[in-house]
């Protein structure tokens, strides 16, 4: 049993922090609820360790390659995105790869790619290791061109 003065101190400090904590809790829940949700059932599955993955979006064929293979976490990796169109391959697009983990908040890990040749964009990045042992990752390729953005997600597993 605590002395009466100690109990009073605890009680006062409890009143002091209860209201701001409740307000913070509501704010953070709102922040969390406003985060965009991704339907991974509609995402292209990618066997990245077998070679580049590709998918067609609008008039574009988007290909993603990650090397060296097998793709491992905590290593420097080269990300290559190739864009193929029926017309001339674009060189003026702003291309980035956003790495996220389905079902786990892992922070924002965005790799900005640079144009290397017609329709070919490259950049270096790292896929971090999740100590939970989960190996499934989502790479969302954002292609911004002429004021429009096309997002192409791929799901893949790392070693």
């Amino acid at each position: 049993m605590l002395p009466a003065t100690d109990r009073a101190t605890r009680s006062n400090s409890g009143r002091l922090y209860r209201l701001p904590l409740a307000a913070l809790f509501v704010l953070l829940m709102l922040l969390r609820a406003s985060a965009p949700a991704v339907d991974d059932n509609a995402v292209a599955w990618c066997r990245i360790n077998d070679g580049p993955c590709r998918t067609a979006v609008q008039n574009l064929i988007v290909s993603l390659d990650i090397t060296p293979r097998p793709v491992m976490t905590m290593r420097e990796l080269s990300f290559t995105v190739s864009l193929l169109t029926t017309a001339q391959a674009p060189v003026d697009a702003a291309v980035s790869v956003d790495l996220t983990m389905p079902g786990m908040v892992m922070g924002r890990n965005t790799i900005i790619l640079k144009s290397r040749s017609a329709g070919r964009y490259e950049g270096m990045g790292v896929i971090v290791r999740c100590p939970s042992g989960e190996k499934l990752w989502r790479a969302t390729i954002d292609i911004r061109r002429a004021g429009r953005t096309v997002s192409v997600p791929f799901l893949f597993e790392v070693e």
Partner: protein
Amino acid sequence: MEAGFFLAFTTGLAGGFGHCIGMCGPIVAMTALRTASDPGPGFFPQLLYHAGRIITYAVIGGLMGLAGSFVNVAGRMMGIQQVVLVLAGLVMTVMGLSIAGLFGSTKWIERHNNAVLSAASRVLSLGSRARFLPLGLLMGLLPCGLSYTVFIAAAGAGSPAAGAVTMLAFGAGTVPALLLFGAAVTWLSSRMRAAVQRAGGIMVVVMGLYYLAKGIRFYAEM
């Protein structure tokens, strides 16, 4: 660069709920349950724990900024992190058993186990509340996917100071969610002391064993 600090802070703020409570919640619960019966403001030990954790983040962030490379520094840290994971598992198992009252106190464990268990138990049995600062300093080294992502940003921050501030901002962002969680555990514990202490203690033991298994498995993979 200020935008980078703000992004690191908001990553910590949002990740606090989505990531940290799941991964670090048991450790926070352990400190909250351990201090639930202490006199004085229940917040203080937890603030010390988080201060320790953030100091470690900032030091590593500074190293990342200095090296300018996440992979090089993280690679060197990996061995230390596995040791900390095993140590955290041991500490949590010992403290969970003590909190649950399964052996009355940690003295039973100290008598029957090795020096590491005994040392971990002694750190947490110190009379001063300051013991939570070294605990936080140590736990800041635990491998964590969310902090790895922000370490990448710290490595690209351009200087040791910017790397350290990036991680300070991130660490500060994670505090509200974990403080809330700790406050909730303390509040529950003060209302339903015996039941919560026992259930919480058993949960901490289970998570301690999980951390131990993870640490040992990482060793096997290295």
